[in-house]
């Protein structure tokens, strides 16, 4: 059993749903990022971690700004893997996924990237700009190194595409809650609930819902609709952005916010 299977099976047994916070590694700098991760882990059932990229086309302004801060502080994929090793030492059970753009994988050498990820204790990799058509080499390396290849399922998906994607997906299904790029929204996407209901009967994999989720009420709604997990990213990054000058406040606000969001999954 891989860590995703174990974690989601435990939660299911106890009748609980999961919270998977996302953060860009190295934002605003390596040391602070490490402390933020430790706060996050107090409330997280799984982690989704972003590798900063110069041209993040799937991301809205908040995560773009986080990428810029992380890159300006000197982050790179090798340092990201170091950071993951650090937190893996603290918790050997929490599933850790990466959200990364294809060129960072490609520039490293695909096999080499997956090997580094495995060595660091990563469980899943989602390449934001590699649809199933281009995922062949990734799936090969994922299999070789025992990593789950995660795929996006979006409101524009056709029944044929959904079928093809689910045939290759493992770990969990990342269900994109809205039409658009990442970013906290006031309202849950109009099509979120219907998409969850469409995907639910098609797969046994956990369904994790992200993009635009920022309020406890959003978490409740997606869980009630049949999802297994809520992913929250831009809302966390906003707290970091707002408190750049005050680390103590940043850490306590991240912790308070995630505690509130976690409660909404219960």
């Amino acid at each position: 059993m891989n860590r995703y299977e174990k974690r989601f099976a435990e939660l299911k047994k106890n009748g609980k749903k999961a919270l998977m916070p996302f953060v860009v590694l190295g934002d605003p700098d390596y040391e602070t990022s490490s402390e933020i991760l430790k706060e996050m882990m107090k409330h997280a059932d799984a982690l989704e971690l972003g590798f900063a990229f110069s041209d993040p086309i799937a991301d809205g302004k908040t995560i773009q700004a986080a990428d810029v801060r992380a890159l300006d502080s000197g982050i790179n994929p090798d340092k990201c893997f170091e950071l993951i090793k650090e937190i893996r030492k603290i918790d050997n059970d929490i599933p850790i996924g990466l959200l990364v753009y294809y060129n960072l994988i490609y520039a490293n050498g695909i096999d080499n990237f997956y090997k580094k990820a495995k060595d660091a204790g990563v469980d899943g990799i989602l390449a934001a700009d590699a649809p199933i058509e281009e995922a062949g080499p990734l799936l090969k390396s994922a299999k070789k190194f025992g990593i789950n290849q995660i795929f996006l399922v979006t409101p524009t998906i056709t029944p044929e595409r959904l079928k093809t994607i689910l045939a290759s997906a493992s770990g969990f299904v990342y269900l994109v809650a809205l039409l658009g790029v990442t970013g906290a929204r006031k309202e849950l996407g109009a099509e979120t609930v219907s998409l969850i209901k469409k995907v639910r009967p098609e797969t046994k994999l956990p369904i994790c819902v992200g993009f635009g989720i920022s309020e406890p009420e959003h978490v409740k709604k997606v869980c009630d609709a049949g999802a297994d997990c809520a992913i929250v990213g831009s809302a966390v990054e906003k707290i970091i952005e707002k408190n750049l000058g005050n680390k103590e406040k940043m850490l306590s606000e991240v912790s308070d916010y995630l505690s509130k969001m976690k409660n909404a999954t219960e």
Partner: protein
Amino acid sequence: MKNLGKFGEFGGVFVPETLMPALEELEAAFEKYKKDEKFNKELDSLLTEYAGRPTALTFAENLSRKFGCKIYLKREDLAHTGAHKINNALGQALLAKYMGKKRIIAETGAGQHGTAVATAGARLGLDAEIYMGTIDIERQKPNVFRMKLQGAKVNPVVTGSKTLKDAINECLRDWTGSVRETYYLLGSVLGPHEYPTMVAYFQSVIGKEAREQIMKKEGSLPKAVIACVGGGSNAIGIFKGFLDDKGVELIGVEAGGLGIESGKHAARFADPKIGKKGVLHGNLTYVLQDKFGQIYNTHSVSAGLDYSAVGPEHSMLRELGRAKYTYATDKEALDAFKLLSEEEGIIPALESAHAVAYAIKYAKECKKDDVIVVNLSGRGDKDIFHVAKEIGAEI
């Protein structure tokens, strides 16, 4: 998706999942309408009656005398809106209309593509929105005003490089949120499949005309065809006419900026230290990047060549040895800009001036009867304020 738009190992369809159904729809629509009689008739009529095609192939008499060979200029500067970009903009805008889309979005660097899209939008009754980096807005002011005059909305892009690369990023982000009703009218032979294939198709009219014209004038094929390469759509457009003529040298000219050693350039092929295979904006190609895969910002005096990657078909043509690629620096391009203006009474776009700059070098090695065709991809009216500033002249 029927095919992944591969050019050898290059090309492909590297985009977030949200866009995939739209790209499948685009592939199907393009494959359908490029064979559709009504569509082709309407496009032909737009190109001839509206855009002024065919464009002339002008013998550059004074330059030829000066450099001792026969230099011809394919006059895309004479097409409506002043550059080759109109060929693709009309083709795709018409396709968008046939697909029932009401809103078109586009990126622009030099503003030539943005202007062409604004023009096509006005003519075909589509709402046009253009993304343009703030650095480019500053250096291509006349084109910004032209777009607005034609009713297009210009969205300034303040992220990253503030030039073409980030304008494309913003288009992709807009499209991700608006994909059901919006058509993304990409301006060069880049992006995810179907764009590199489709844009090359709409631009191939340049090469088709040029080949017929030179055969008529000279009775033989040229020794070389020379074009500037940013994304590379004007170059692919003219190369297409001569691809099967193995004896014709095809030469692409990248932006050498302040020189290759300076690192401040947009020469993806000329600097193997940072120009490596990678994925940007939906395709695998040569990209200027660091060892971790972060994309470098570029420098060129010309906004239209100031881009970190190059169309995937160029990467393939280079690997096959069918085309070769070189560069001209900012200074060489500015000198060529002045030279062509003085000698022939043609003010070239700064982009096209790069092709002219290399053509002059190439001509010096030629014999008297050797024929060179240079693709003069656009006119330089848009550049006069910027050039005046660069050379310290007052207007």
